[in-house]
């Protein structure tokens, strides 16, 4: 069996809260996760779910209360592990007195690249993230989207095998988001593993081989987006038009909603044919019949709603 790209076992992080009577607030609760080599893995969750905490622990920016993690078989405490990974922090901020080229040069030096290699890499990666024209501009003059691009460039500058991206689409316009999606796809084609956190579910559905959903610091589910939301049809959607002057039968008149000159109705799968017969009887023209399946978004909102109604044990852990 090959070594997984990322192995997380029982990762827990408690933060002290309060001034006089300090208590512990659990922001990550026994997270266990395995990401295979070459996967695009989406780490989903609402704000405060523990996504950034997980990434900070993996980067040794903060230390776990308990649990362990390995990246490509190396412990996260091992500094050699950092040669094999790239990391884009959430809302990245860099030394604003440097230009984009100088910043990447600085980071490339830390990996020990020679002068010629550094120059070539920096130019190549600035082009790859669309910043070739802004290469010699000081970072203090960069927009949020441009900083995000620099952040992506510094994360992949040294050809890491595993790339961690914390909200990589945040702050980007639609064109920028598309470009980042393309970069992530390219990285996968090159055989790299991409682990990215997001709350933009459409990006996750579009990009990820597998996703994990985290709510309130707890893992709620892991799997391919299609697996996780089940392929079961919960209703059929019918779009239709009526002939001028014809009236809809009573049951349909109540349930159908009018959109422009068209009607839309959601019906249970077992009633589909009887409803179609009714529509044909009143001379309606059927435009489309679509099976409705729950989306990742539906699944996500259901989990968040469930978590909101459940008690919050992590708040009650006292020191």
């Amino acid at each position, binding site marked *: 069996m090959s070594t997984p790209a990322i192995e997380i076992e029982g990762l827990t992080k408690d933060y002290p809260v309060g001034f006089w009577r300090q208590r512990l607030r659990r922001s990550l609760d026994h997270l266990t996760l395995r990401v295979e080599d070459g996967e695009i893995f989406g780490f989903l969750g609402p704000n405060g779910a523990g996504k950034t905490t997980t990434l*900070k622990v993996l980067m040794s*920016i903060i230390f776990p209360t308990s649990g362990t993690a390995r990246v490509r078989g190396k412990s996260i405490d091992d*500094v050699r592990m950092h040669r094999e990974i*790239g990391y884009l*922090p959430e809302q*990245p*901020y860099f030394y604003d007195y*440097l230009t984009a080229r100088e910043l990447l040069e600085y980071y490339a030096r*830390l990996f*020990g690249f020679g002068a010629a290699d550094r120059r070539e890499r920096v130019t190549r990666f600035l082009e790859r993230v669309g910043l070739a024209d802004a290469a010699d501009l000081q970072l203090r003059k960069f927009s949020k989207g441009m900083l995000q691009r620099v952040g992506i460039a510094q994360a992949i500058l040294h050809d890491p095998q595993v790339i961690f991206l914390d909200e990589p689409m945040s702050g980007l316009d639609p064109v920028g988001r598309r470009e980042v999606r393309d970069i992530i796809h390219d990285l996968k084609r090159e055989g790299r593993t991409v682990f990215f956190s997001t709350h933009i579910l459409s990006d996750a559905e579009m990009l990820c081989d597998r996703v994990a959903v985290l709510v309130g610091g707890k893992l709620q589910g892991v799997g391919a987006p299609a697996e996780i939301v089940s392929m079961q049809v919960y209703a059929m959607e019918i779009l239709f038009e009526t002939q001028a002057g014809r009236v809809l039968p009573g049951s349909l008149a109540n349930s159908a909603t009018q959109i422009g000159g068209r009607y839309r109705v959601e019906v249970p799968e077992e009633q589909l044919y009887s409803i179609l017969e009714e529509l044909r009887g009143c001379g309606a023209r059927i435009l489309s019949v679509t099976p409705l399946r729950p989306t990742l978004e539906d699944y996500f909102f259901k989990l968040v709603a469930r978590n909101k109604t459940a008690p919050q044990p992590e708040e009650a852990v006292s020191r």
Partner: protein
Amino acid sequence: MSAIPGIVAINTFREAVRDRVLYNLIVFALMMMGAAILVGEISIGIDRLVIINLGLSAISIFGLVMAIFIGVGLVYKEMEKRTLYSLLAKPVRRWEFLVGKFGGLVLTLAVNTLFMTLGLAAALFYVSRQFLRTDATILIAIYFILLELALVTAFALFFSCFSSPMLSTLFTLGIYVAGFFSADIRGIGTVTRSPAMQMTARVISYLLPNFRNFNVISAASHGDVIPFSLIWQNTAYAALYVALVLIAASAIFFGRNLK
């Protein structure tokens, strides 16, 4: 030997230069020019002494202000602005980052001091139209000031690993003042009959860095000979003290959860 502290140090130096830290040199230059012209007008026979005293004191004070105020912000700024996140995701150990930051500020202070030394030399030449053999002691005094500044920087960095810039400034200033008077603290022990008090005063005075040892401004301005033994003793003392303070800072920073 890791190259990373050196890379971080050069970047820290570049930050200081681009943050216009070296602009203080303009103030120094104006001060030395003013002093040189004024001294020529009012002092008879002691113009060299006044210029050397004034120049060395200014180098020391300007350096101290820089070491403390920039030193306490070195780590804090990186944490506050989260530039440290990207850096620590690279193969950079926390102690390498700290040593690099320390090295960068000491390099900045050294360059700053070098320019001030040139300014002092120019002012000295203006008032006496010559350099004397004894002026070499001025260079030794400047070297001691640099050692002192390195030690102050190490303390500023140490305190900034666990406290806010405001508190770190107060702590570093406190250490500097107490260290300057460490001999007097030892003296407190001699005026009390309590053995416990004597012991406490002695321990405190030995623990505090003895900053007075680095001050040879008066000797330099009078052209007195500074013994070679003092040069190597001060060098070894500063190197050892800086190493200990940086080890302590690294130990604290090693386990710190960043925001």
